[in-house]
């Protein structure tokens, strides 16, 4: 009987440990402790911009194209080509683009954090920080979270603009079943400013979870290079689960009671 409960107990313990770690790091940011290392936060922000922006935008743009193409052909096939803008608007803003952002964040940023912190852990660099009198969790993890919060809202909103442009190109320029004016009228009619905020919140919750999960697995990596590889894989699995969980909950919470199209029924 004990063996039957051993695995769930282990998962529960791990969840508690991850939760406590995340709480500590978020506390360091909210409490301002991270500002002792504001320069490092800015450095991390710079690294994020230089190394991840283009690839995230590229995925968001491609999925914007797909939203536009799918919507144009599907609605044309059902006799309502002028309404391609509805599909593109919701596909972009509510679902696919936040997921695209989450996927690429998990694949590029999350795994990058695990690999970097894990390598630092196994080569004693984290211990070296500690013995220099530097709180390594604040220096390595809280600074990365603050950097993400500084950079990612702008990166996400700009990427969303790129996805909108991609959908427009697909529907109006490539497929061409609807005029530019007709597409934009419907496209903007089915979204409003709070929707942007909700979409941004959804993406930022995903980003926060991804950065924290990456920090947790990297900071606590052990067992040499193999251990770092295992931690990277584990972080990717957990991040993909969290991205979908946050995406689903976000849609229900923000748009479940939307009078125009209640998703919650």
């Amino acid at each position: 009987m004990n063996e039957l409960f051993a695995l769930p107990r282990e998962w529960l313990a791990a969840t508690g440990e991850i939760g406590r770690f995340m709480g500590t790091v978020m506390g360091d940011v909210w409490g301002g402790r991270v500002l002792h290392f504001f320069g490092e936060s800015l450095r991390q922000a710079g690294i994020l911009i230089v190394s991840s922006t283009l690839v995230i935008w590229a995925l968001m743009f491609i999925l914007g194209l797909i939203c536009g193409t799918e919507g144009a052909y599907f609605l044309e096939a059902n006799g309502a080509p002028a309404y391609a803008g509805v599909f593109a608007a919701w596909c972009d803003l509510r679902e696919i683009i936040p997921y695209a952002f989450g996927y690429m964040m998990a694949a590029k940023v999350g795994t990058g954090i695990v690999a970097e912190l894990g390598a630092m852990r196994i080569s004693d660099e984290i211990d070296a920080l500690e013995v220099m009198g530097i709180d390594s969790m604040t220096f390595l993890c809280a600074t990365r979270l603050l950097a993400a919060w500084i950079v990612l809202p702008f990166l996400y909103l700009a990427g969303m603009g790129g996805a909108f442009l991609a959908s427009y190109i697909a529907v109006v320029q490539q497929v061409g079943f609807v005029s530019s004016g007709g597409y934009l009228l419907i496209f903007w009619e089915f979204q409003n400013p709070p929707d942007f905020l909700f979409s941004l919140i959804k993406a930022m919750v995903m980003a926060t979870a991804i950065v924290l999960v990456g920090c947790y697995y990297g900071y606590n990596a052990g067992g040499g290079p193999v251990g770092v590889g295992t931690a990277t894989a584990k972080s990717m699995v957990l991040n993909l689960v969290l991205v979908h969980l946050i995406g689903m909950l976000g849609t229900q919470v923000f748009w479940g009671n939307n009078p125009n199209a209640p998703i919650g029924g």
Partner: protein
Amino acid sequence: MAVVKEEEFEFHTGQNRPAGVPDAIQFIDVHKTFGSNQVLRGLSMGLPEGKVSMILGPSGTGKSVCIKHIVGLMYPDSGDVVVAGHSIPSLSDDDLFELRKKFGVLFQDGALFGSLNLYDNVAFPLRQHTEKGEDEIAEIVNRRLSEVGLGNANEKMPNELSGGMRKRAGFARSLVLDPEIVLFDEPDSGLDPVRTALLCELIKEVHAENGGTYVVITHDIMSARRVAEYIAVLWRGRIVEAGPSQELFESENEFVRQFLAGESSGPLGME
């Protein structure tokens, strides 16, 4: 509490010959267990202030664990570790971080930050803990790097350095805050005999110039002969004997004699 079999300690006299100065670091009946592996089993020792001390012992006997206890990276399951008058396990996190500013630690592979070049690695503690301007930092960093023979390697990244250079760079970084206590975790591991000898000379020279309490962890007897002023021989998680190096090298203790002579016959086998 794990059971301790006293027959395992027949050579452990625990004799602590006085060094003539007060202890900077004290272990008081320290026990530490990892899973079923009892590493420290009632360790009591003192390491004298202002001297180069060596903790010597066979591999896997808890030497590196001792260093981690001294700097508060690990805490004892029971017992106490007192450094510069502070009980390490009793300190708050903030007090511990403050105390650590008095330490310099040289890790086995130098533990240089892979994303920073040599200059920035050595400058790192100064930039984090002092208000010094870049000119003053440059003066200190260049002096320390020259001291360890790396004056021309400022721009090199850690992955461009040999093992010996990384250790010397780590040594330079550990010295920039003028620490009161410098700890060396197997500084000779992975080095050829000549570079080991040069590093030992360097440790002696820097200590003679700067003073402070140096603690070197090693199992290399030649290094001990070259550098140590005080030796503590550790085996099975306890001190066998400790004292000024000359007295230890003349010890009648069977284990100490075997270990310090590097002989194959004696109490220490392959087990």
